[in-house]
């Protein structure tokens, strides 16, 4: 590492947690060159879809827990989310994306999902 340390604390390793985050932020960047632009866009769009899907699922679970839904409605919600999950998997496969690729690093705010 380049010597840019003006004052080192007794335990400098305590500060080493930022390095992996930087590497991660670099690798999680959306590739915008011509060959990669389609995959980059798909990554961005699918990330947002995945975020909405998870929010909907959480909201549905909350309503099920609150007991305001009939058995039939709960059954239908369950099937819907299973179908959505399957469809997301297909879309990801189509663009060669892993589940991890949709988990964008928001820097200080942590991971999106």
């Amino acid at each position, binding site marked *: 590492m*380049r010597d*840019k*340390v*003006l*004052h*080192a*604390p*007794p*335990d*400098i390793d*305590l*500060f080493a*947690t930022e390095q992996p985050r*930087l*590497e991660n932020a*670099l690798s999680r*960047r959306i590739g915008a060159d011509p060959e990669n632009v389609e995959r980059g866009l798909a990554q961005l769009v699918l990330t947002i879809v995945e975020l909405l899907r998870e929010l909907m699922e959480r909201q549905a679970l909350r309503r099920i827990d609150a007991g305001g839904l009939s058995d039939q409605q709960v059954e239908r919600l369950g099937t819907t989310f299973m179908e959505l999950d399957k469809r997301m998997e297909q879309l990801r496969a189509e663009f060669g994306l892993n589940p991890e690729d949709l988990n964008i690093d928001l820097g*200080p705010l942590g991971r999106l999902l």
Partner: protein
Amino acid sequence: MIELVAITHAAAPPPPARLRAIPVGGLLAVVAPATEEEATAESLWRREELVEELMADCDLLPVRYGTRFADDEDAAQAVAARHATLAAALDHVRGAVEVSVRVIGAEPRATHAALSELARDAVERPVQPPQVLRGAYLVDRDMVDAFAARVAQLQAAQPGSQILCTGPWPPYSFSDRP
């Protein structure tokens, strides 16, 4: 395709090889040929070394990595459009450098206040635990040693605290503060 590296005063000495300076009304837009390389920790360090080499001889505003223009005319136009802001920001950092401080296990407010006394300007950045303070300080070039000494003092005065101080850096955190 060219990449904008930094903004300096027109009176700055000629930039090192590989770099060219485009005059824009009292300012210089320092540019390099754009490369196809990926953004990696290594390429960011190479850019950092380039900017630091430039910084050794003159005051400058570092430009965000990956700022690209089609040609000299495009770059000059972009700089001309923000000329007043850039000139003011350049005056603000004249003769100073950025010093970064990260703190664990000390009182953040008092630490930040004590360090700000030795700085021309200061900004706080968002922190992640266990860090309690992450600050950038604009420090006169001849005050950097005194600043580092103050850091050592603050750490000694707060048992169990950990304070990391790095620099001198180009004034990244003060490039948009006139």
